[in-house]
Structures are given as C-alpha cells and as structure tokens.
C-alpha cells in the first residue's frame, strides 16, 4: 500500500525489446487512446458544471459546448430555493460528529486489541471484522424499528449512531493492523516512567497512529457525507435533511428547471471534488485501505 507514491525502478512492460519506430508509434497511439478514456470519465462532471450555467433553452438545444451567457443566477436561485445552506450544515454536523466518535471509539478499542493482553482477543477482532461483510441495506428495517422505539427518528442521532457503528469494523481493522506493527518497547518505557494506560493511549498511541487515523478519517467522512439510504429512511423532516437527500428531493420538485437542479447538484458535489483534488493520493489510499490489508 505504501508504494502508491513511490516511483518504482522496474522496467516498463511496454518498453521491452529493441526500440523499433513502429513500436514507438503504437505506444503513442495507445497513450492517446488512454488519455481520451481519461477525459471521457471526466466528461459527465464537466458537463454537469457547464450545464449548470445554461438557460433551459440552451440546455435542451445545445447540450454540448460552453454556455453563451453564463447564468450565475442559477446558483443564487438554487442556494435560496433549495435550502442548501441548511442541508450543508446538517451534512457537516452529522459527518463531523460521527467522525469524531468513530475516531475516538475505534482508536481506543484498537489500542486495547492490539497492545494489551486479554482472553478472547481474536474472537473480538473477528466479531468486528465480520461487520465489513454485512450489507447495510439488510439492517434498514430493524434499525428503523429500533430508532422508532428509541424515539431518535428525525434527529441527528438517527444518522450519527448508525454512521459511527458502520464505520467501526473497517476503522478497527485498519487501526489494529497498524498498531500491531508498532514495537513493544515504545510503551514499555512509558509504563516504567509511571504513565498510566490512558496516558499511553492519549499521548503515545494516538500520535503514533496518525497515518492510520487519517485513512479512517477519509473513509468514514466520505461515507457519511455521501450516504443516501440511511438519510432516506431515518429522516423525513426537511430541516434535518442532509445534502444527498435534499438534492434528491429537490430534483423531484424542480424536474423541468434544469439550470436550477444542475446548479444545486454542482454546489453539492464541488466540496468533495475540491477536497479530493487537494488530497488525491491520501484519498485513494484511504478508500482502498480496508480492501488491500484484507
């Protein structure tokens, strides 16, 4: 996994043999095709942003090409009429709170599992890891009933609790694997100095696990930020809707005002794209962490 950023010194499989010019041509064409493929995968997003600036008429008659006059007004109207501000705040609140809970709870549990001796350790780790295979949607009905009985439906907790709970298996898996590889001497010295278990956890283990914690951060934040199904089932109050849910409902209501809908979609997608562009390598590494270590 750590090799993602590293340039490998191995010989490319496509430069094999003597460099005939026909081969060079082939490789140029090959890379051109590949670049076209790359641009094609970016096109839907590009199309979204460009179309968000168009008038309805232009959107329907000239779907390709840049807008003749950039309708910034679409964004202003979208922000006002779709309560995007509220949805944005809701998404930030549930994502941040569940992230903080996930980080603390999973780090603590992973510290215990990876560094302390006790009976049934393997069993407990296995119990958590099995959770990575449970299909989220098969829990929707019982969770709905459970939360109804706890009367937390239509509160932030209806999202924060399941987001945290479902983030735990991968988080504990990644953190335990990381902490197990830390040499024993590190906390032994601290114990001799009289530092307690909490002290070791907070002052030594948390800082040491920073790379693994950042992986967990990316993974669980994106999951809760983008989640649709939990929000769809557990939230019906419009003042509590998160971004994906609110966009989906908004689109149902404004089907034919295309500029408006696309502007709302653009507003919703831009923050994740910006974060992604800023931390590409970390995000790619983070989102595949659970899989690669498995």
């Amino acid at each position, binding site marked *: *996994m750590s*090799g*993602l*950023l*590293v340039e*490998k010194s*191995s010989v490319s*499989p496509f430069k094999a043999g003597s460099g005939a010019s026909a081969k060079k041509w082939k490789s140029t064409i090959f890379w051109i095709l*590949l670049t076209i493929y*790359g641009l094609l*995968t*970016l096109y*839907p997003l590009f*199309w979204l942003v460009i*179309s968000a600036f168009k008038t309805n008429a232009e959107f*329907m008659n000239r779907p*390709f090409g840049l807008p003749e006059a950039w309708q910034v007004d679409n964004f202003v109207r979208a922000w006002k009429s779709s309560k995007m501000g509220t949805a944005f705040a809701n998404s930030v609140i549930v994502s941040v709170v569940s992230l903080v809970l996930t980080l603390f709870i*999973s780090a*603590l*549990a992973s510290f*215990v*599992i990876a560094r302390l*001796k006790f009976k049934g350790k393997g069993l*407990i780790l296995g119990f958590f890891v099995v*959770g990575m*295979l*449970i*299909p989220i*949607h*098969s829990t*929707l*009905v*019982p969770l709905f009933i*459970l939360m109804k009985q706890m009367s937390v439906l239509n509160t932030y907790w209806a999202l924060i609790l*399941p987001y945290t*709970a479902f983030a*735990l*298996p991968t988080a504990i898996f990644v953190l335990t694997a990381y902490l197990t590889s830390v040499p024993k001497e590190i906390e032994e010295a601290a*114990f*001799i100095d009289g530092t*307690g278990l*909490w002290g070791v956890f907070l002052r030594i283990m948390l800082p040491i696990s920073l790379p693994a914690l950042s992986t967990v951060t990316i993974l669980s934040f994106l999951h809760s930020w*983008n989640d*649709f*199904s939990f929000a769809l*089932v557990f939230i019906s109050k419009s003042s509590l809707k998160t*971004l*994906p849910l609110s*966009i*989906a409902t908004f*689109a149902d209501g404004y089907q034919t005002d295309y500029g408006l*809908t*696309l502007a709302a979609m653009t507003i919703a*997608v831009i923050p994740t794209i910006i*974060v992604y*562009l800023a931390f*590409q390598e970390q995000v*790619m590494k983070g*989102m595949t962490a659970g899989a*690669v270590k498995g």
Partner: protein
Amino acid sequence: MTNTLNVRRFVILGLLPALVLYSLFVFVPVIWSAYYGFFDWKGIGAAKFIGLKNYVEVIHDPVFWRALKNNVIFVLASVLGQLPLALVLAIVLYKSNPLQRFLRSAIFMPMVMSSVIIGMIWQYIYHPQIGILNFLLDAVGLSSWKLQWLSDDKIAIFSLIPPLLWSFVGLYLIIFISALQNIPGEIHDAALIDGAGGLRKIVSITLPMIWSTVQVAIILCISGSLKSFDLVYVMTKGGPAHSTELLATYMYNSTFSSYRYGYGSAISTSIIIISLLFIGTSQWLTSRKSKQEAKGGHA
C-alpha cells in the same frame, strides 16, 4: 507500574463503547431482521406471528427472483467487466509519471462523489428527449439507435451498468495498482530476460503474483453489487415494472412503500444469506483455482 486489575478494567472500558454501538446498530439488527420476518406487521398496531409464511412467499415471489437476477447481472458486470478493465488499466498506469497520475485521479474521481449526484447525471445522459446520449446519436447519424434507455423495461437494467462501472472502476484500479507496486522489480527483470513480455507475462507472472488481491476484489465486487441501492433508487426506483428491481430496492419498496415490515425483513434476511452464499462460493472457486495453478507450476 500498572497492575493487572487496572489493565482488566481498561480492557473492558476500552472495548465497551465499540462493542455496544456495533452490536446494537450492526450485528443485532441482522438477527432481529430474521425474527421480524416471522411476523405480519404494517409498522403500526400489533404484529401477528405468521411463522414461515413471509419466507415461503419470498421463495414464490417472481419479483424477488427478478431482483435477484438483476443483482446477479450486476455482480457479473462487475466481476467480468470492471475487474478486467481495472486490471488492464492498472498494468499500464501503475507507475507515476504525470500522465499516469492524471489518468488515475480522473478514473478514481467518481468514487468520492455521492451516488445521488452520479445517478442524476446519468439520468440526464439517458434522458429520451434532452439526453446527451440520444443527442449524440442524432449528431452522428445513428438516430435509429436511439432508445428509451431507462424506460424500456427490456434494456433499462443494462443501461444501469455503465454508470455502475464508471463509479467503481477507480476503486479496483487503485487496489490493483497497490498490489502491482508490491511486486519486486527483479521479477519484471527476470521475466524480460526469459523473454516473457506482454500478454504472456501478465498471465503467467503478474496475475498469479496478485491473485490474492484479485480474490479480495471479487469479494468486494459481490458485496458491493449486492449493496447497490442508491444509484438504482435515484435513476429508476426499480422500475419500469420491476425491471430494474434489486434485492435492496425491493426490500425498501416492500417495507416503506407497501408498509409490509415483516415481508421486508424476510427479504433483508435473504439478502444476507445470499451474499454469504455468493462470497463463500467465490472464495471456494478462486482458492481452488489458485491451488490448481500451484500444482501446475510444480509439474
């Protein structure tokens, strides 16, 4: 020095929040779901115990089988479409020159987008009147190829495959790239000396080296495809006429649109059983294959 009693207290205290939250919201619901499946319940009022009736109805329900078939189509499209594509891309993109980095980032990008947005974008692409796909077909003189991509019940399920591939191919690309970067450089060099290049090298050296990663990727494909919900819910809601119904959308529709909580729970339980069966079978098949290969290598 910390004494044993303290350590024991810390172990319990440290595991407790994780265990409680995880059990209550992830693990126990699975069991409850199986239990609720024995009841006839509309969400309000008394639940009536009806034994295995819901489960028997699931087995005889044509829509359930239709949904399962669609899930299998998704699994096959992922395993046979996504994985080979991702593998080929990984083999050409695993180094880090600027173009390779750019392509990697571009292909991975849909992974960070909400599937609601992805579904909505593709709805516009497929739109019969204003969609860019039909517009494009008109422009290149293939008007006869224009279709009702999402509202024709014969092709709707297949129209959902490109957005599915587009969203997730980046995930497998990065997984395979990490695996390829872990292959020591000497192995590539040795292959070159032996004169193994191109396809032969991929089949006889690269693939066996990363086979365990391929196995993990297959499991991810299966569990990921069985988890599909958002994209389909946003694009077709399972229609027209259940033609794009998936197990998850059918479960959702039965529970929250038809208010049959017991029946929805029975479908939920089936989803878990089916996904474990799929994963078990794929594990068995792929591990058998790697054993055979190991034997072949010795011969």
